[in-house]
């Protein structure tokens, strides 16, 4: 399931819904991405995520299909927010459910790595006096490349 929304989400409710009624699920791996302060810079007041409605959902579905083709996942979920978010707020939830934990962990890490490099989101950071669009992170591109090794 793919959800792109401005509103916050309740992790407990979402994970419960993911596994309900399927007793062949042995493990659920999830990742929550949060708005993080930059201790090295001046204090972050907020970040604004802009996205490309339509293409975002298409790319997330493509990434999700790819994960299901690579691992025996019983269920998966991506919820991604957009709009203005404060430090500490939830940005994204990715979750995978499988009979065994190895597939769940690998599928979940694959989803978040690919999401960060493929899903059309752009981030503007607001430091009070300065706001700036953030460039792509080399580290994320490296994390995606490892899946092709």
């Amino acid at each position, binding site marked *: 399931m793919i959800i792109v929304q401005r509103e916050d989400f309740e992790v407990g409710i979402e994970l419960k819904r993911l596994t309900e009624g399927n007793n062949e699920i042995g493990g659920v791996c999830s*990742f929550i*991405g*949060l*708005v*993080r302060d*930059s201790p090295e810079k001046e204090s972050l007041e907020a*970040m604004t*995520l*802009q996205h*490309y409605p*339509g*293409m975002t959902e*298409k790319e997330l579905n493509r990434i999700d299909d790819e994960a299901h083709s690579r691992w025996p996942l019983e269920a998966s979920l991506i919820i991604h927010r957009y709009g203005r978010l404060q430090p500490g707020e939830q*940005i*994204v939830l990715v979750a995978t459910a499988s009979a065994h934990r190895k597939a769940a962990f690998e599928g979940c890490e694959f989803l*978040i790595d690919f*999401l*960060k*490099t*493929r*899903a*059309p*989101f*752009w*981030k*503007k950071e607001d430091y009070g006096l300065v706001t700036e*669009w*953030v*460039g*792509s*992170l080399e580290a*994320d591109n490296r994390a995606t490349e490892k899946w092709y090794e």
Partner: protein
Amino acid sequence: MKILYFAWVRDKIGLDSEEFDLPSEIVTAGEFIEWFKTRGDTYAEVIGASDTVKMAINQEYAGPENAISNEDEVALFPPVTGGKY
């Protein structure tokens, strides 16, 4: 043709989207980019400012060799960025 802008490309051009008539001799994304630059200084700057402006045709990532037509939805944007997690 509908063309959408995102992030700093949107701020620089000052519009979320525009409608163009694409000359019929333009049939690839690479040719589109060359033609787009001739539309004005700001357009040339957006393309020239950086090697990193990306393009999507009909909501899929596209490269210079991809086919393009006046019925397509095109988007220009910087490389994608998410949270710092």
